[in-house]
């Protein structure tokens, strides 16, 4: 071996010949992507087999007659569009999702601000307490709500009676029942908004507030011109995301009212369940579910755009 003085050391002629040239590293790279594909294969199979295929199959199902023996084209959809009940379902689903998400977002924002005001250590405890509704499985906590709205034993009515107010038929009258389903959803979903917004609030750099203070901004102006614009993207992503989830919600309506009274609270999910599983008209149930798709697609499109845009902003 040469001692490391200077100059080049000729290594030509020694070593292996230049035979296996085209390929090695390429093979290495190709192997890498092959392994990558294999690692993702279970995911692809799962999504392909149990999400994409059922989705396509749902479309096919919705085009059949009740016995699933005959192709009937869009008859199921046409039938649904003529039914007053189904018009109610569309209206209620939208009312349920929009109203619930609005209040979840509003209360979540308020709570996040309140939490942001108090200091770190006690903040954890408060956060823990406020997250309880979201931690308990929705189907189980709704049981309690159902019990609290019970026609003869309602504990809310007991409180009202103490103040001399007559009992309220919580789940027995259409609009009140609608209010109740929305209330339970708001109760269940607000904590999620709170933690998302709290995280967003924490990510706003303090210097911005300091700069705003020096520029003479009031507390309200700071909220209006610093906080909300900085959080805009998260707010919109969370809202859209929650719209989709709330829109597809099943547990609350199913347990509280099962669509009643007089179909005044049915949403897509519960109606599809009733038509498809309980009454055994699978094609019609599939058609009901599929009515959700256009609305979901719009939501998904905007979420995806928001997320990509945010990623780009963070990258820049």
């Amino acid at each position, binding site marked *: 071996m040469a001692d490391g003085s200077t100059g080049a050391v000729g290594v030509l002629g020694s070593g292996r010949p230049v035979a296996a040239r085209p390929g090695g590293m390429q093979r290495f790279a190709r192997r890498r992507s092959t392994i990558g594909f294999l690692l993702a294969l279970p*995911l692809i199979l799962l999504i392909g087999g149990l999400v994409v295929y059922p989705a396509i199959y749902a479309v096919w199902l919705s085009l059949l007659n009740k016995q699933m023996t005959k192709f009937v084209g869009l008859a199921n959809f046409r039938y649904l569009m003529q039914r007053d009940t189904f018009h109610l379902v569309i209206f209620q689903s939208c009312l349920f999702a929009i109203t619930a998400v609005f209040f979840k977002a509003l209360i979540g924002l308020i709570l996040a601000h309140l939490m942001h005001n108090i200091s770190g250590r006690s903040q954890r405890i408060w956060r823990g*307490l406020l997250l309880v509704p979201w931690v308990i499985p929705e189907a189980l906590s709704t049981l309690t709500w159902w019990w609290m709205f019970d026609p003869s034993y309602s504990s809310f009515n007991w409180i009202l009676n103490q103040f001399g107010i007559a009992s309220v038929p919580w789940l027995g009258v259409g609009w009140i029942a609608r209010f109740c389903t929305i209330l339970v959803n708001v109760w269940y979903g607000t904590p999620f908004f709170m933690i998302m917004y709290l995280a967003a609030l924490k990510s706003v750099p303090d210097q911005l507030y300091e700069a705003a203070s020096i520029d003479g901004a009031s507390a309200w102006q700071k909220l209006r011109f610093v906080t909300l614009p900085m959080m805009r993207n998260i707010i919109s992503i969370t809202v859209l995301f929650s719209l989709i989830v709330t829109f597809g919600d099943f547990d609350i309506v199913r347990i509280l009212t099962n669509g009643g009274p007089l179909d005044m609270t049915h949403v897509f999910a519960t109606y599809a*369940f009733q038509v498809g599983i309980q009454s055994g008209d699978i094609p019609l149930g599939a058609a009901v579910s599929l009515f959700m798709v256009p609305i979901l697609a719009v*939501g998904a499109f905007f979420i995806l755009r928001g997320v990509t845009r945010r990623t780009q902003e963070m990258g820049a």
Partner: protein
Amino acid sequence: MSATTAGNLAARKRGNSQKSQRRWALWGSYAALTVFVIGFLTPPYYTLMTSLKTSAEIGAEKGNPWIAHHPTLANFWWLITYPNFQRYYLNSVIVTILVVAVSMVISVLAAFSLARMGFKGSKTLGTGVFLTYLIPQSLLFIPLFQIIGWLGLINSFWCLVIIYPTLAVPFCTWIMIGYFGSIPKELDEAALIDGAGYLQMLWQIFIPVAMPGIIAATIFAFTVSWGNFIYPLAYLYTSSQEVLTVGIVSDLIRGDVFEWGKIMAANLLASAPPIIIYAFLMDYYVAGLTAGATKG
């Protein structure tokens, strides 16, 4: 001299008023939060109170329903020794453990692949995973009913083991892509040079480093499979196969007879695992959830 004193005084006064303003804001926040906490905790509190009452006390309809006048653990004792309830609990545990294991294996492998390895179409797949996450379960339960039927798994809790991962995997993968993606590239390169293969790299570097993400994803998978309601309601109907969420309702409500004390006690027992898990691991879960949104 006097001018400066006056200036100081004014400054101090302003400082004081700022301080007191801040204190008011603090106390105001505490007061408002207290109101919200009371509101938020009312249902769980009422669950607890009812679970401590006998059917007789509930039926008597006397006095304040918000307090258990003669608290008893009889409901809990009855449930613990009730074979059906034991069965539901066991089924829920089996289903959840299997679902969490399957989901985590699938999503960790896929996330590693999507975050690091890359292959033709991997970007599209990443977007696809995210979109899958946005598909509500109420959209697919009808075609899945048919598919489960073909597989002969109607009224078998194994159908839940197959279906639940579709709910857990997309989001778990999404979380894990975020965590894996935030690991500096040089770390893989150092591992490659140190002589690690890809699976060694995943097992010895990525998983330990992204442990908070793994925990968050595991909690999510657990939450989804423990609390799901629509699939067991649609696909299961005998008590030997039933899981907690549906079993409680179908077993303890017989026609017009509502055993509210037992329902609420079962409710508490069924809610206990998630509450315990969240009590210890909440920080990881919140970090995992919000990382997705605040980082992109």
